[in-house]
């Protein structure tokens, strides 16, 4: 019975840890999304005389 109780306590701790880990990951992803959204429209060069070129290199 004691083992069962210990297992339950351990399991609840693991669930808590998993939930915490997920919350941290979600927070990090939200922060990343905010950052990328902030920069997404930033195609304007710093100097109006400058130009922007984009190249994809596989």
């Amino acid at each position, binding site marked *: 019975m004691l083992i069962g109780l210990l297992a339950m306590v351990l399991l609840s701790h693991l669930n808590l840890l998993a939930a915490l880990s997920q919350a941290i990951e979600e927070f990090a992803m939200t922060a990343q*999304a905010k950052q*990328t959204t902030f920069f*997404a429209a930033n*195609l304007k060069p710093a100097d109006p005389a400058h130009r922007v070129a984009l*190249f994809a290199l596989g």
Partner: protein
Amino acid sequence: MNGVVTTLSGYAGGSTVAPTYRSIGDHSETVLVEFDPRLISYEQLLEVFWDSHDPSAEPYLTQYRNAVFYTSEKQRQAAEDSRQTLQKRLGRPVRTAIEPAGIFTPAEDYHQKYYLQRVEALMAELRERYPELQQLFRSTAAARLNGYLGCNGDPASFGADLRSVGLPAELERDAR
């Protein structure tokens, strides 16, 4: 390259909103180059681009395809012309895409200035001048240093180049 003001790694060419490296969607890994047309032409950048990849390669993943994303009609024309010239010279089809630039999303910090971020002494020196990491990544100094560390550029002009972007020439030792 003299005339290149800023470089940024990122994602472009697709429609996925706010792409990241882990969820890039239909975008391709792309480099943004801000340049001063009084010092370097778009055609010169195109030459480097064509020399930097195999233009007849079949893309095996959208993430890693080859493409020019033009930002003006003039760029589109220049890209098309240079592709045609190259195709004639190679005598085989050029599969590199030429498409209009949509939204460019900068990649995560750890993808920026890849070579530079691995040299602590140089990063420390730059952080003094650019306390904000985003400023550092967008600086000409960082673009220039990263280029040299990636074994591009003429080593003979490295010291002079460092001074031209406001860095002490002694940093040359740390970079070597």
